[in-house]
């Protein structure tokens, strides 16, 4: 091309980034990469390599080790052994280490960006301008937390050894998202990168050495899913942090069930991108580009479902099409390329097959006329219109550059469509009416809401999902807390396993025991006392072994009914916090009027002394006050990401929460769990203590006189673990708190994988409910809420 021709056609021409330095680095590791364990490069026990390939041209970039069980064990041991020193160097020492990682990331920025582009296929613009700067930012931010930890979170401590498994879509960025908060909190890590994209983590390992990170604090083991599975199941790992697909997340939840390992999962999504007729349509089009054609659409929070208001849908789709014509697909190292290569042929095949299926189900496909390379692993930007909600491309995560378009008429319909998914990772709302946008943000069940922007990430802001998009947050204090535990919990874990509850006599009431109490407590569902579906009752014995009364023997249909009643009580979550506080105070007030009666009931059933019973009732009243007090004070935060704008971190209710009560302190333990759950706006399904359910059934009357709306609290008596299993299996139940045996705890965690409900189980450990340090506190509020981060950029003045 000569200058004259270029002048006449005004084309861009090639603008390749130089990759010489990285190629030299790869050449120097030609023999294959070892594992990074205890600050050294260690050959795997069994020499086995797999190739890392540049998806843009098929070139083999290097050979990476497949770590096996022995290697994982070695890495976990190294991490375990490094913990004491890592604790000893203190917050400031750890801050220095994290600061070094931040600085060195910046110093090696170009090399890291080029390597990432070569290995993953994403455009150099993105690795250079987004991935790598965001990595550095993450280490800076968490250097700050390391520094502040001792003064700001003195009641917390590190978890120990963290196993971390990351995906291939943001290889180095996910390394930082995992390592930075873990280290800031004082943990040591074993990290496994994705097998398609291990190289930047290995270059990062060299940076760790350069930064003087103490040996064993960061260990990097490469391998495939099998390696990951071995890390998950290693007995000496205290927590697993996983980012990847929902399917694998569910397997990990199963694998860790009952082990006591803390777990955070950041999984898939099918995030809505909602455009109202009063939006800046041109800016919204650029939003779409950033939402679905960023990183070839291989982004868990990609705005893959465009919901556009009918009044502007035609105009908006026309604008998208003309914008798509200017997207440049090609060599990811070219600085003028917008869309690079798909990470692997298998992923490309998946995209193609889902698109074909979507078309066969009625979607209309449109792709721009701009060229797409025919060699290498590329897929053109794709628009699918006339997508109905039943179409596979409306519900299934494609993880590719494919946008599914649907239209809506009203705000209400937009919200309904937005929430019509198993996922709940992110949503983007476009409207110039900020009142409207802020009204919608809390109504969308997703962990991240972007108003008039999209795909923004920052270390200061929590990132993570609702529903089957996982749980736990990365970034912000909410992310840091995922790598900490209250120091208190150590005491909890030492306490004895619950004593076996008194045997329940299952014989039907025959009226033979004189004097019997003619009382048959029903179930409490939807604000009404109702008979159990099965028509059976259970006899409840008093402390002397005589029948104290009958309770309904609830079954799965009663649980179903209770959940339906809870669904209808959704407005509880929208009630003001002041309103919820008032009701909790009122419950306490009404309990105080009847404290004598409850205390007698406790004596009768449990055989505890009158004084003990009186104390338990008084403690219950105080606990109600405690959560009434918190109801309007458990505020969120305003994060300050580096944009002109703010991010609101709101503590939101989880939704419908099951509570399975222990036998110990039957009234107080019930109140201690119920109060924080409803204070935060959740609806509860209670399975009372199997030994003393009459205390709880007596409580109906207090609920009824305290203006608790129907369906907010539902109580189903019956066989504890059987009913708990039904709750765990129920896909409409969002959270489940279980206090019971270790076997029951495992069962609950394993059974809750269906919809990835948030579980909080005691692993068989007893809790001293009458102690304020164990029986109440912020941890209960954290467990009753999830954090939603709402990004609000602003400005209308030049």
């Amino acid at each position, binding site marked *: *091309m*000569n*200058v*004259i*021709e*270029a*002048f006449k*056609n*005004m*084309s*861009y*021409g*090639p*603008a390749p980034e130089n990759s010489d330095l990285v190629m030299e680095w790869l050449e120097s590791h030609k023999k294959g990469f070892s594992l990074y364990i205890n600050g050294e490069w260690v050959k795997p026990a069994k020499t086995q390599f797999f190739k890392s390939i540049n998806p843009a041209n098929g070139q083999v970039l290097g050979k990476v080790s497949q770590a096996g069980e022995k290697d994982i064990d070695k890495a976990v041991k190294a991490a375990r052994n490094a913990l004491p020193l890592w604790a000893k160097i203190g917050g400031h020492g750890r801050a220095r280490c994290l600061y070094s990682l931040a600085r060195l990331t910046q110093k090696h920025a170009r090399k890291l960006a080029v390597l990432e582009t070569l290995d993953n296929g994403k455009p150099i*613009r993105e690795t*250079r*301008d987004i991935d790598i700067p965001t990595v550095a930012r993450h280490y800076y931010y968490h250097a700050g937390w390391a520094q502040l930890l001792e003064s700001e979170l003195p009641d917390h401590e590190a978890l120990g050894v963290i196993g971390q498994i990351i995906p291939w879509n943001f290889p180095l960025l996910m390394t930082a998202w995992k390592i930075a908060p873990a280290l800031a909190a004082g943990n040591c890590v074993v990290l496994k990168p994705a097998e398609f994209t291990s190289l930047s983590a290995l270059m990062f390992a060299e940076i760790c050495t350069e930064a003087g990170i103490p040996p064993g604090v960061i260990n990097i083991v490469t391998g495939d899913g099998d390696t990951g599975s071995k890390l998950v199941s290693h007995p000496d790992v205290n927590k697993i942090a996983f980012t990847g697909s929902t399917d694998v997340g569910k397997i990990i939840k199963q694998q860790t069930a009952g082990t006591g390992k803390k777990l955070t999962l950041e999984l898939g999504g099918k995030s809505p991108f909602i455009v109202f007729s*009063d*939006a*800046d*349509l*041109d*800016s*919204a089009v*650029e*939003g779409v580009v*950033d939402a679905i054609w960023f990183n070839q659409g291989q982004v868990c929070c990609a705005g893959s479902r465009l919901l556009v208001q009918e009044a502007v849908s035609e105009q908006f789709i026309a604008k998208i099409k003309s914008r798509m014509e*200017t997207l440049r697909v090609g060599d990811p190292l070219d*600085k*003028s390329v*917008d869309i690079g290569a798909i990470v692997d042929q298998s992923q490309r095949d998946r995209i193609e097959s889902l698109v074909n299926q979507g078309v066969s189900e009625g979607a209309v496909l449109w792709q721009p006329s701009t060229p797409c390379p025919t060699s290498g692993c590329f897929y053109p930007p794709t628009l699918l219109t006339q997508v109905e909600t039943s179409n596979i491309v409306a519900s299934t995560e494609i993880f590719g550059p494919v946008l599914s378009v649907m239209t809506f008429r009203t705000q209400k319909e937009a919200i309904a469509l937005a929430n019509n998914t198993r996922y709940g990772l992110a949503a983007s709302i*476009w409207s*110039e009416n900020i009142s409207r946008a802020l009204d919608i943000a809390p109504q969308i069940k997703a962990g991240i809401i972007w108003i*008039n*922007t999209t795909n923004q990430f920052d270390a200061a802001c929590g990132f993570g999902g609702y529903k089957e998009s996982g749980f736990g947050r990365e970034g912000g204090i909410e992310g840091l807390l995922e790598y900490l535990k209250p120091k208190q919990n150590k005491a909890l874990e030492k306490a004895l396993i619950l004593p076996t509850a008194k045997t329940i006599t299952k014989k039907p009431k025959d009226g033979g025991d004189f004097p019997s109490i003619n009382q048959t407590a029903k179930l409490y569902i939807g604000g009404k006392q109702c008979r159990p579906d099965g028509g059976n009752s259970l006899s409840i014995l008093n402390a002397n072994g005589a029948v104290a009364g009958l309770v309904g023997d609830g079954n799965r249909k009663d649980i179903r009914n209770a959940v339906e009643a809870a669904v209808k009580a959704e407005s509880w979550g929208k009630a003001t916090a002041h309103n919820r506080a008032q009701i909790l105070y009122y419950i306490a007030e009404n309990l105080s009027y009847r404290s004598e009666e409850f205390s007698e009931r406790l004596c009768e059933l449990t055989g505890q002394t009158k004084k003990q019973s009186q104390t338990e009732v008084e403690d219950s009243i105080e606990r109600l006050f405690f959560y009434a007090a918190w109801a309007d004070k458990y505020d969120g935060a305003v994060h300050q990401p580096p*944009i*002109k*704008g703010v991010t609101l971190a709101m503590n939101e209710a989880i939704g419908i929460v099951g509570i399975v009560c222990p036998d110990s302190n039957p009234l107080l333990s019930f109140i201690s769990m119920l109060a924080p759950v409803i204070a935060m706006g959740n609806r509860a399904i209670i399975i009372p203590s199997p030994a003393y359910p009459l205390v709880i059934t007596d409580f109906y009357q207090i609920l009824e006189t305290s203006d608790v709306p129907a369906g907010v609290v539902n109580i189903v008596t019956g066989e504890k673990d059987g009913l708990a299993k039904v709750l765990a299996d129920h896909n409409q139940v969002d959270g489940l708190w279980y206090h019971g045996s270790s076997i029951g705890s495992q069962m609950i965690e394993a059974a809750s994988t269906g919809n990835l409900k948030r579980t909080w189980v005691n692993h068989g450990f007893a809790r001293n409910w009458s102690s304020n340090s164990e029986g109440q506190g912020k941890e209960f509020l954290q467990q009753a809420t999830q954090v939603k981060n709402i990004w609000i*950029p*602003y*400005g*209308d*003045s*030049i």
Partner: protein
Amino acid sequence: MKAKKTKTALKAANEPYNPGTDFNPDWISEIKINQSGVERRAGTLKNRRSLKKEWQAAWLLKAISCIDLTSLSGEDTPGRIKRLCAKAASPVRNDIIEDLGVSSLKLTTGAVCVYHVMVETAVEALKGTGIPVAAVSTGFPACMAPLETRLREIELSIAAGAEEIDIVISRRNVLCEDWPALYEEIQAYRSACGDAHMKTIISTGELATLNNVAKASMVCMMAGADFIKTSTGMESSNANLQVSLVMMRAIRRYNELTAYRVGFKPAGGISTAKDAIQYLVMIKEELGDSWLNPEMFRFGASSLLGDIERQLEHHLTSCYSASHRHALV
């Protein structure tokens, strides 16, 4: 009046020049500009495209062809303006042009832009070059002169040989959101301009919001502007990529609504080759290749040319150039 350069080009492309439309309030009320969205697009676009080697040289030459080489100073004299015109006619050293192999382009700047009193001098100096003279007008830069004298100024400049008139709008009409008044004002200028090429300076730095920028742009186009232009160069803030993006999108919208194409001229503060390429990239991305020519796009600039000359020399020699190696503007 003779057919003007721009209009000839449009006719050649079988497109009518913009005759304007009736005042259409819906086209104003539908405008929604999200500033943070605009900032994001404007801020990232420059990193999404990169030009190297021959392409960079070609784009820089294109930039030169789009410059309205400008001198708007109280100190302007005929001597100074003659030098400006000579530079416009021969903007790049001959050996550079030859080494680039672009002699056949007969490269000149797009126009020369001066105050009314310098029009005659400039027209005389540019005789035979085909380079039009643009006159800033209508009480430039503040637009605070009586309407009568503003209109008269246009007529006088045209009579003196200006083929292009850069008018300024009354910012007060925008700040009071009196869009019909703005429309009437521009229409009056339009009819005073006759067949002359009318660029309307909306003075973005004094319009307070991007929404006002978009709305003022739309009103000016409805009233028959051939070009919309960002700034006088005298405001406290000059052209930038954000306001340019908003104005380009207004042009695109007007084109969708009417099929008429209106040109764009950012002015003030554009002084480096890198800046120039960013504007050209934005034009290509937002409006398309058919706007990448002096008929549809101009830079209002005085020092930009010097930096481009140095970059071109660097392209050829791989050695950084010095300003004294190029003819002074």
